[in-house]
């Protein structure tokens, strides 16, 4: 056997964790796809028809999980913002920015599905119903958050400012909810039936739970991809700053 002298393979210290991450991402994507398919089947076939609302009620299985994910995403923005203020780490900032972006998308879904449901049920696309209004105000606050990010040029300053906004926005949520509720209850208006009482049939509850799991996984997947993208963007920005 002849020994051919070859250069030892170049050691990439990041290779192993990178492969692990990629595998993790792949599994997350597959699980998300499976549970989303399950949700689709559950929402359209398995769940019984609502006797009063008819097929329109099935939008509930997208609406409620989106609302849940929206709140979860904004909670993560809040936590990551505190992380930015305490550590000044760019990593926290990437998580906050990414979670806010994904949260705004899901909140948009909440508002749109709410409107689609409201049209046949209440006869109007929009009613200033407390929960819908609260989500609208929430949406406005986090769109503002994203707008501020795009207006501040310097990365470190952007991270700090956005973090302050992320903290104020989240702590403002209870105030928004209370004031909107009081505003509607004191204001005479069309009486809005409570669409989701706690007595949900078993099949409906099961599908709802699948929905919440599926949407949480979807959120995790999107957040992961978005944080990855932000990291690459930051690295590129740093490299450009070095070469120029």
């Amino acid at each position, binding site marked *: 056997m002849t020994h051919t002298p070859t250069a030892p393979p170049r050691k990439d210290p990041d290779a192993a964790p990178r492969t692990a991450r990629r595998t993790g991402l792949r599994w997350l994507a597959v699980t998300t796809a499976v549970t989303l398919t399950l949700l689709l089947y559950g929402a359209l076939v398995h769940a019984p028809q609502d006797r009063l609302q008819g097929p329109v009620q099935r939008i509930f299985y997208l609406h409620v999980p989106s609302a849940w994910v929206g709140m979860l995403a904004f909670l993560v923005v809040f936590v990551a913002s505190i992380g930015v203020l305490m550590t000044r780490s760019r990593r926290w900032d990437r998580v906050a920015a990414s979670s806010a972006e994904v949260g705004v998308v899901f909140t948009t879904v909440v508002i749109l599905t709410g409107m689609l449901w409201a049209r046949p049920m209440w006869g109007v696309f929009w009613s200033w119903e407390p929960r819908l209004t609260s989500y609208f105000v929430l949406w406005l606050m986090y*769109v503002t958050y994203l707008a*501020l990010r795009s207006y*501040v040029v310097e990365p470190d300053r952007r991270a700090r400012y956005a973090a*302050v906004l992320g*903290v104020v*926005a989240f702590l403002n949520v209870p*105030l928004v909810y209370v004031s909107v509720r*009081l*505003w509607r209850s004191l204001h005479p208006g069309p009486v809005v039936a409570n669409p989701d009482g706690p007595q949900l049939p078993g099949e409906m509850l099961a599908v709802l739970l699948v929905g919440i799991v599926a949407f949480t996984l979807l959120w995790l997947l999107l957040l992961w991809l978005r944080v990855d993208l932000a990291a690459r963007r930051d690295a590129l920005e740093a490299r450009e700053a070095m070469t120029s």
Partner: protein
Amino acid sequence: MSTWRAATRIAAKDLRIELRTRDVLTAIGLFALLIVVVTSFSLPTTGVHRDAVAAGVLWMAFLFSILLGVGRAVAMEYEDACIDGLVTSPVPRESIFLGKVLSNLAFVVAVQVLILPIAVVLLQLEPGRGIGLLALTVALATLALVALATLFSTMAVHTRTREVILPVLVVPFAIPVMIAAVKATEVALAGGTPVAATSWLLVLVAGAALFLLLGLATYRHLVEE
């Protein structure tokens, strides 16, 4: 120097500048008056909903004059780099925030004291017994809005768009305070006492406390250079 004493010194400096130039007061006073006049043309100010419309008109005038005045007063610190002097001086950062809140509050309250009687006449209001609730509402909501606007305008001066973005930043966050202020004012204009608007006053107290405390807690992260 204690936080509070430093804050009053900074506020006194702002008031001294204002007394010499009268830039901010003249601008926001006229602006508030103009909003009352213009909205009176565009909304029905008579009839059963008169008090509700008047409450809305008043708060639109107050909100936008606060945005204009606070935006100007904070941007002023950055002209000739006055803020650098304040940041390097041996006072707590919280004092700068508190001082700006105090001086902004003084400007805005001065304008409100001027505008309220004019609005009462122009909009034919009869608050009568509701005057106490009206004063309380204006005081609490103004404190909340000024604290919020002072905090956010510090960010606005460092954006690409400068002061233009300030209303966009503040208004979504001010919604709960605005709802409570308008509703409590409506009760007051109908002659109600504070007891008739307890929930609204509680929202205003919570808003004022929240924005003031958050301002004190986070301001140092905004001026750190």
